[in-house]
């Protein structure tokens, strides 16, 4: 389980980048009055997304035993979901970088920037989709379930909405987090908590029958599952405080931004522990 840390980092950071792109970028590029959005705010947002994807890509190389040979990684696009995932990742990074260049140098009209933003979002969604399909292997029944795309999507949306709600306000020049984004983050994290409780493979309340396999069974790491639910519940609690108090005076020394940052940290810890649990479902045979 622990040896897959580069993939844990890659998937969580990559999914967070797509989520932030969609949740924080939409108000900046497509929202009402977005044309007048601060150029610096847009650039900060683009640098944040590029930073996350660059970190994800760099860390993913640590799981390769011959990274110098990875230049051929796009040669099996016709069959391999891993090749496709990397193609869409490159597309997502490339379009986001182009968006940054156009925004920074003020090249292209607002309509062109909007179209480029939508195109980048599409590449991001395809990146997430191919990442999910990659793990839906017939040989690994615990991964070959609707849970895999659902959990990846929820990771992306939860982290994206929470980041957009907690620090995205600064990018758009607003002093306080946006109410709809906080509410959206609350909804996503709630769905994630309920889905995890019910449908996490092996550990969820909805059980599944193991099929004949030449792989050893995964050890029952219930404590990780329980820890994950606990931190998600804590994050939800903090989000609830923000949702119910942000309209008036916060009444807390931390204020809404502080609570949101804490909620983001807790949900992030939940995602990381869930991902370790996910990779732990596959026990490699032999040594």
């Amino acid at each position: 389980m622990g040896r897959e840390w580069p993939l844990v980092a890659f998937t969580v950071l990559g999914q967070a980048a797509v989520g932030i792109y969609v949740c924080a970028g939409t108000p900046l590029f497509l929202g009402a009055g977005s044309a007048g959005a601060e150029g610096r705010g847009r650039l900060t947002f683009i640098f944040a997304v590029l930073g996350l994807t660059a970190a994800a890509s760099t860390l993913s190389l640590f799981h390769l035993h011959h990274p110098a040979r990875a230049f051929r990684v796009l040669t099996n696009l016709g069959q391999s979901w891993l090749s496709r995932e990397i193609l869409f990742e490159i597309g997502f990074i490339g379009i986001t970088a182009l968006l940054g260049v156009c925004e920074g140098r003020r090249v292209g009209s607002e309509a062109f920037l909007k179209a480029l933003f939508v195109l980048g979002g599409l590449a991001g969604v395809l990146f997430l989709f191919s990442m999910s399909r990659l793990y839906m292997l017939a040989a690994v029944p615990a991964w070959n379930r609707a849970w895999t795309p659902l959990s990846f999507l929820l990771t992306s949306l939860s982290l994206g909405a929470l980041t957009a709600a907690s620090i995205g306000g600064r990018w758009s020049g607003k002093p306080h987090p946006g109410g709809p984004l906080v509410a959206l983050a609350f909804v996503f994290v709630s769905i994630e908590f309920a889905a995890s409780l019910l449908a996490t493979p092996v550990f969820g309340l909805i059980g599944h029958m193991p099929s004949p396999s030449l792989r050893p069974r995964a050890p029952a790491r219930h404590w990780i599952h329980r820890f994950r639910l606990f931190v998600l519940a804590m994050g939800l609690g903090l989000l609830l405080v923000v949702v119910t108090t942000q309209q008036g005076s916060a009444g807390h020394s931390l204020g809404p931004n502080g609570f949101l940052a804490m909620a983001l940290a807790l949900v992030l810890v939940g995602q990381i522990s869930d991902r370790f649990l996910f990779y732990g479902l596959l026990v490699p045979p032999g040594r």
Partner: protein
Amino acid sequence: MVTQYAFFFDAASCTGCKACQIACKDRNDLEPGLLWRRVYEVAGGTWEKRGEAWLPAVAAYNVSMACNHCQKPLCAMACPVKAIGKRDDGLVLIETTRCIGCRYCEWACPYTAIRFNATSNTVSKCHFCFEALDRGEPPACVTACPGRALDFGDLDELRKKYGEIRQIFPLPDPSQAEPALVIRPHPDAARAAGRGAEVANWEEV
């Protein structure tokens, strides 16, 4: 001309001596811990009361398994750098100088045939002793089996000779990868799942 080489395994004749496993290790000079052919010990069952008597109702047999050089090789389909290919005679071979060591093929193989070689830092697997085969000699595992529980040949010929069965417990659904494999089941195999049988030697395989 052979279009698809395949293995035949007779579970009823296998005693679990593991001569095939050791012959493979010896022929290919595999490091400790690396097995291209494994012998799974399947065991399960309990006592059953029939009338006034208590009788053992057990399932116990062995399954010798290597790469099945599948007709639909999921490992090759998963490999992002096309390091795994299929020859005209059906053998699925790894080009280790292309392998990036991502181990995705290891996840994709339903038979866990792909094994990581820590010396070369690439994946590895049974190559059907293709060099011996090209010289007209049999694979090492087939030669070593004292009970003649293993055989090899063209898949169509093996099917004519031994039948069409290609799955027994605990092998996965063969429709996933279409393995080039023919099996003669052990009499206990049909009852194994119902008797709660499990692989008893996970640490070894």
